[in-house]
């Protein structure tokens, strides 16, 4: 499978090498030592003291303290001085054991021999890039302790950092609720938690939240960022991007997270759901990941997006850089880009029928399939699609540097997959519809007969005759569809059915018989129409229009008669030909995407788990372990917490790629529960690590756009918890009470409120930004959403507080608990008390009040009672409070 990347470990110095009389080989003997012990701080990515030890020339140029080596004179070389320094404080490398005597001897000899190295010393071997080597768990994690705390603890101790203790229970509770469910705790949850003194109180909350359907909605939105969810966009009704009904993919994401579907399985379903479960509509939804890239005007743009974002989302690789030229930093050649494209070359999109709706514009299942196994993939010279390099067709492959094996096996598809209209429910619906037509015709005949009291003679006869012919034709149509279904089933779904030929003949006959009956009906209808037109009528006789109508009907009648003759003559010839039930697609899928998916979703892939773990970590802590979340290539320096990242990546894979396992591990760590309050906190820590890289405290952060909107509705007790279904018009964002994840989100179709709070960019959003701009204040202060919900909540809480002795204080207290998940401090209580009195007085003083201009916001109006209105205002203030949008 994957070949080990740790090539250089084999060449560390040994006594045997030392004794050799031949000159020291820089590349083979010196570089490995420096690479392992020095590059991290004196290499291209981090150049402490301005010194780089990754090329011989750089060593000679040296850094802040002058040259690191003086060729020929090891005794005068700073490098030797530093590695042999007796004082531990000054010795290099500063961490770990000193260099061995053998290693030092090698360095000495190399310098004394003139420090020879090739002039054009090659760039570092990308195969040795940390992220391209398989993650391993470091051994020294103390058992019994959360490994996150063990690993962070080691780093903190090294630096003299002393972590803060756990945050107050209400702070932790709000944090975990918002983090795992995207909603703050209710007052009842808050009180219950504060009362629960059992050891596992917190763990119980975590378990409840992870089991809650709200969790999938919350984290679904996170992954929708990474996987680039977008509803369809385009001009008016014309789709230019993504797919209609792609919300089914969104529902798949949410459901998959809720059921803790293994991440490797999710990758396989998104990239190759149609190959791995070709008849399971629930799985097929997942291919929306690919369908989302559909672009009306340009197949190359479509495939470029597919390549680019598959690589970024799952592998943390910027393949897109290699579309026009070899990647400038990573071992990805321009050919590799097109080889990755080749996995997707055969695929395209389609929409399958779903039960209950025959019109796929109204509802349907958008999915992908391989439509064309033949189209070759060519490298486009300099990325120009007009210049394919046709001499060298490329087959699907991934760069060898990442290891692994691509094993493409074509997938034979079952009939339901390549012939979706032969699926049972479709057939049933077709037959049901024909049956319904027949039933209607029966009813119509009965009605026609009943009518004889009103209509006499010929006209009644005609109506009955027509109705009778309609029954015949509907009956024949039903027979035809049944016969065709039987024949198609025998032909495609069954192997060598001996009756197939007979069934085909019967289907042919039934269809032609139906054609005769339908043609007969058409003739009859035209005849009747002509008769009606010829009824003497003064008004119409000379009318040009009337004449035109008569001519037209005559023509139609002639045509109908001709058609009938043709149908009758066709019906005399036995034939196996009949019309298919619907479109058929290739019976084989190339298996390319499945091969790719299995290569990615693989424990032997060094990137997949790390990239996912990094995304998850970032969303728990507000900051990732690897800053460039979509680029783990050689430009991504080795992360500060690499041991932690790798430990978690391996842990993730060892636990069947369970995200919930990872979430639980992370949120039950002490690191996650630390306080952020820092009035008196560790000034020393702040000096050592002002940016909190080592997580000695919790860095507070702002809620994401969706969580802000949902929380407003939730604290007001008005959030509609209905799940799933078609996307909701984004313009209803201020009035609808559904969760934000269910609103339309597409190019030019985004909810303004969410956009202002750095909502996901539709194009790509691997990491949200967290801005603070005045527009956000205005959105919270002036929107219908915040006005309406504060008014409704205030009235509810006022009723509750009215039962209490000190109504005003009771109101303030429960308002704080409800909105900010904590009690007010005595100072806050005092301020709010004063506010309620002053504001009510202000509002009662009608002659001194002036309104703003412009239309009043829609929805619930303010209370007419100044006292209640002041309470509404107080809630409105709390929704605008810094701590409402902040996770501490």
């Amino acid at each position, binding site marked *: 499978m994957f070949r080990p990347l740790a090539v250089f470990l084999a060449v560390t110095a040994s006594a045997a090498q030392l004794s050799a009389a031949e000159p020291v080989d820089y590349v083979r003997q010196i570089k490995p030592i420096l690479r392992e012990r020095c590059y991290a701080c004196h290499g291209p990515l981090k150049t402490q003291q301005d010194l780089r030890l990754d090329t011989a020339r750089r060593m000679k140029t040296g850094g802040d303290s002058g040259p690191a080596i003086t060729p020929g004179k090891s005794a005068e070389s700073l490098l030797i001085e530093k590695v042999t320094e007796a004082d531990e404080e000054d010795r290099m490398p500063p961490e770990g054991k000193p260099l061995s005597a053998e290693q030092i001897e090698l360095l000495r000899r190399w310098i004394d021999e003139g420090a020879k190295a090739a002039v054009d010393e090659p760039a570092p071997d990308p195969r040795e890039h940390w992220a391209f080597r398989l993650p391993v768990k470091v051994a020294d994690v103390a058992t019994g302790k959360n490994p996150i705390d063990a690993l962070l603890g080691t780093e903190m101790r090294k630096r003299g950092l002393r972590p803060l203790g756990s945050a107050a229970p209400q702070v932790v509770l709000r944090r975990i609720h918002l983090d795992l469910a995207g909603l703050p705790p209710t007052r009842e949850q808050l009180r219950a938690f504060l009362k629960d003194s059992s050891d596992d109180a917190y763990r119980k909350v975590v378990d409840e939240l992870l089991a809650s359907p709200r969790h999938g909605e919350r984290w679904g939105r996170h992954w929708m960022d990474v996987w680039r969810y977008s509803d369809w966009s385009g001009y008016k009704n014309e789709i230019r991007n993504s797919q209609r009904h792609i919300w089914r993919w969104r529902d798949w994401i949410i459901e998959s997270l809720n059921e803790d579907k293994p991440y490797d399985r999710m990758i396989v379903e998104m990239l190759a759901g149609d190959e791995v479960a070709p008849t399971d509509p629930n799985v097929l939804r997942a291919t929306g990941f690919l369908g989302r890239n559909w672009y009306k005007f340009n197949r190359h743009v479509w495939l470029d997006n597919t390549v680019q974002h598959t690589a970024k989302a799952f592998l943390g690789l910027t393949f897109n850089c290699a579309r026009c030229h070899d990647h400038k930093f990573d071992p990805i050649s321009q050919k590799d880009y097109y080889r990755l494209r080749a996995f997707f070359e055969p695929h395209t999109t389609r929409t399958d029928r779903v039960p209950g709706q025959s019109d796929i514009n109204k509802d349907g299942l958008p999915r992908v399939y391989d439509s064309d196994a033949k189209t070759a993939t060519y490298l486009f010279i*300099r990325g120009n699609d007009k210049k394919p390099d046709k001499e060298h067709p490329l087959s699907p492959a991934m760069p060898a540097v990442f290891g692994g094996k691509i094993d493409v096996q074509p997938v034979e598809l079952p009939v339901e997959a390549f012939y979706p209209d032969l699926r049972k429910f479709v057939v049933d619906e077709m037959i049901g519809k024909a049956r319904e037509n027949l039933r209607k015709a029966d009813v119509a005949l009965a009605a026609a007969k009943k009518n004889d009291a009103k209509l006499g003679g010929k006209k009644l006869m005609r109506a009955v005759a027509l109705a009778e012919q309609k029954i015949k034709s509907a009956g024949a149509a039903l027979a035809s569809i049944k016969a065709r279904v039987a024949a198609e089933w025998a032909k495609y779904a069954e192997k060598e059915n001996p009756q197939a030929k007979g069934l085909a003949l019967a289907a042919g006959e039934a269809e032609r018989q139906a054609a005769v009956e339908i043609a007969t009906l058409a003739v009859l209808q035209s005849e009747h129409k002509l008769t009606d037109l010829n009824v003497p009528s003064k008004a119409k006789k000379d009318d040009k229009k009337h004449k035109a109508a008569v001519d037209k009907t005559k023509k139609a009648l002639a045509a109908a008669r001709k058609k009938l003759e043709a149908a009758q003559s066709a019906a005399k010839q036995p034939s196996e030909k009949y019309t298919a039930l619907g479109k058929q697609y290739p019976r084989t899928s190339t298996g390319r995407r499945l091969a790719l998916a299995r290569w990615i979703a693989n424990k032997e892939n060094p990137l997949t788990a790390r990239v996912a773990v990094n995304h998850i970590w970032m969303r728990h802590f507000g900051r990732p372990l690897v800053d460039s979340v979509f680029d783990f290539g050689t430009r991504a320096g080795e992360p500060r917490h690499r041991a932690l990242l790798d430990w978690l990546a391996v842990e993730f894979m060892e636990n069947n790629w369970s995200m919930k396992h990872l979430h639980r591990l992370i949120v039950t760590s002490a690191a996650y529960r630390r306080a952020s309050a*820092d009035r008196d906190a560790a000034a020393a820590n702040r000096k050592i690590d002002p940016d909190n890289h080592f997580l000695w405290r919790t860095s507070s952060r702002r809620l994401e756009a969706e969580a802000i909107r949902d929380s407003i509705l939730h604290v007001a007790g008005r959030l509609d918890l209905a799940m799933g279904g078609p996307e909701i018009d984004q313009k209803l964002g201020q009035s609808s009470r559904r969760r934000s994840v269910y609103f339309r989100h597409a190019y030019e179709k985004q909810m303004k409120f969410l956009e202002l709070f750095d909502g996901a960019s539709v194009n790509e959003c691997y990491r949200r930004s967290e801005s603070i701009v*005045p527009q956000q*204040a205005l959105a919270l*202060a002036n929107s219908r959403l915040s006005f309406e919900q504060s008014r409704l909540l205030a009235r509810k809480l006022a009723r509750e507080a009215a039962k209490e002795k000190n109504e005003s204080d009771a109101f303030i207290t429960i308002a704080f608990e409800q909105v900010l998940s904590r009690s007010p401090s005595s100072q806050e209580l005092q*301020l709010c008390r004063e506010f309620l009195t002053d504001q009510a007085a202000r509002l009662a003083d009608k002659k001194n*009040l002036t309104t*703003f201009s412009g239309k009043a916001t829609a929805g619930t109006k303010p209370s007419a009672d100044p006292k209640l209105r002041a309470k509404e205002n107080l809630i409105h203030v709390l929704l605008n409070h810094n701590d409402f949008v902040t996770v501490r």
Partner: protein
Amino acid sequence: MTYHSHSPTAHCSNRRAFLGAGMGFGALALGAMLQRDGWANGEANWSPPDGQPHFSPKVKNVIWLFMVGGTSHLESFDHKPALNRYAGMSIAETPHHDVLNPKFLEENVRTLAPDLRKVLAKLYPLQVGFRRRGQSGIEVSDWWPHVGGCIDDIAVVRSMWTNDIDHGAQLQFHTGRNTLDGYFPTIGSWIHYGLGSLNDDLPQFVVLGRPLADCCGGNEGHRASYLGPQHDGVPLTVDPKNPLPFASPGAGVFRQEQRGEVELLRKLNRLTAEEHPHDAALQARIKSYELAFRMQTAVPEVFRLEQETKATERLYGIDQSATKSFGQMCLSARRLAERGVRFVQVYHGSNGGAGGWDAHSNLKSNHSKNCAAVDKPIAGLLKDLKRRGMLDETLVVWATEFGRSPGGEGKTGRDHHPFGFSIWMAGGGIKGGTVHGATDELGFLAVEDRHYVTDVHATVLNQLGLDSRKLEVPGRKRLDIDHGKAIKEILA
């Protein structure tokens, strides 16, 4: 003169007033705490900037025009006839082969690219003619006729260099650091941090145009990093019809009612700030709320471009479809500067990717179209500032992340080129009609009076009366190169 009458001094007191206003019993404590902790590490002798310039400023505002994607210096402000002479030859074949000096590349190019030198290919001839313009006779390409017409007010710097060969250079141009180093305060945020407000109703650092794409810095291109989010640039949309979403609570709300709420909100947030003196986001949010309520009326007024005369609209090309969009941005930039906004960062060509000027192919159609979109509006801005007497107090900077390669890419394009390229400045204290620095004969390397991007920052700060060393934050050691050196040669 249409400047608002606020002087920097008045504003400092505003800032103080703001810190103290309505704080009740919490005020002193918070103030003391901010002082004590110095917002960083409790340095004894440090206090945050007082909003006063460090020395006498030449200008009040800066309008920073940034072309996203990399504008070719060779087809704009740095005429190199040798490219036509040697077109089709490789650099090594020309008498100027020494420009490929690997030592230079090694020192200046911070990249892991092994095949850097392959990028260069064959010299590509100039795609546009040049002519001498103005009294100064500086050569400007024919794609910039209107800016060329203002050349006597402009100082061109032809010897810029940067060291990111990719579009991360966009971020680098604003922070002075290679993206590999991470995020740092941008030039606009330093100014916001260092200087008091000239208008309390508007953000002092405004961004117009679509922000940089994620590839190239994203919002970090106008953010403040460790200076704290209250110094971030505020993006505004030039949409006269809907300048500010949720701008008003509407007739359902009383002004007195909102005022009462704002007052309580401020007090509550300040109480929280006492608990969290290091929470920069909270500080920023308090300020952004204050500003937001004042912006409710101030911002829509800025974008009422219909207040301008037809003649002014024509000056900026707003009457023509090709120049309308950028013309509106330039006009809005003037209106913002006029109302005291310190730093207006205007993007052209930001397209959610590498940028609109990134002409790897079809440079001729790409650049002629882009120039046609910005040339007249930029010239209009310069002329408008001048006739209003504002040009003396407004510094206009025109820049781009890097130039484009003398060697052709494909048959019709040029690659990225950070080793030598041009920018220009005009207005407050700039010696017009000047050319400073030079690239070699091929336009490859900046060879004379070389300037790294932070020299532009230093020049801007210098004109505003700021000394970047005095703005340093304890615990945030800056390097010499971060500070740069003001380009004195172009100053009047």
